């Protein structure tokens, strides 16, 4: 079960997050809310699955799409999503998520959601192990 810590007037709130179960072949849709003001422009919306470590975020899978925002005279809140194709690069286990807007130098980065993606073990190929006669009767 993932969680996020949110500062509030009462201190820090521990907000548990449900995790999502995926397997190879699925797509994970990550929906983001962002704010923008100023001139119209296009920037990549980027999201990644991986693990947070002491050296930073170790990305395993990612995807991006181009966001085109109109000119905003004041701060405007918008939503958009990016789909990450789940492949066998992810072994079974739990992973973290983060998103950002911008290229090599991000313009804004989301908080990391930890342990929110659970990758299920691959279901093995079909095989028959053994057979035995369990009954025999006149019909």
């Amino acid at each position, binding site marked *: 079960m993932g969680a996020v810590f949110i500062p509030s007037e009462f201190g820090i709130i521990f907000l548990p997050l449900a995790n*999502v*179960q*995926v397997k190879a072949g*699925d*797509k*994970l*849709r*990550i*929906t*983001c*809310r*962002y*704010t*923008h*003001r*100023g*001139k*119209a*422009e296009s*920037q990549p919306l980027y*999201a990644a699955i991986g693990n947070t470590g002491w050296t930073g975020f170790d990305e395993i899978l990612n995807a991006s799409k181009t966001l085109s*925002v109109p*000119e*905003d*005279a004041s*701060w405007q809140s918008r*939503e958009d*999503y990016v*789909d990450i194709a789940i492949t066998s690069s992810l072994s079974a286990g739990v992973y973290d*998520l*983060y*998103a*950002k*807007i*911008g290229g090599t130098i991000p*313009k*804004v*980065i*989301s*908080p990391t*959601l930890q342990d*929110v*993606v659970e990758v299920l073990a691959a279901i093995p190929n079909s095989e028959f192990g053994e057979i035995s006669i369990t009954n025999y009767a006149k019909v």
Partner: protein
Amino acid sequence: MAKYADIIKIDAPSSAIVGATVIVDVSVKNIGTSDQNLAVTAVFDSTSFPFQFDYLLVSPGQTVIFRGWFTMPSKNVTITVWSWYWDGSEWVQDDRYEKQISLSQATSEFGSIEIIRYERR
């Protein structure tokens, strides 16, 4: 309807960033049958701004351009332009024209981003 100093058009940007010099070109045509001294005055909101020429002697049928300029404030503005002709003893206001110039943002910036949903598709 103008008597002599007909404002044909105003060339000015529809938007500008704060602090930018906004150039306003006012095309005025002498629609009279004799030479006329023509002039232009203008304001953005209630603030007057200067023009390159105080007045010009214009032949019948001739169009001249008066160039004015001002510094864009931090808000949308309406510019109002008046044309004038000299009747031999005083300036007479003749034609009037308005144009909106909106404030545009100098840069684009993103303030925050957060993941609000994640779902298997």
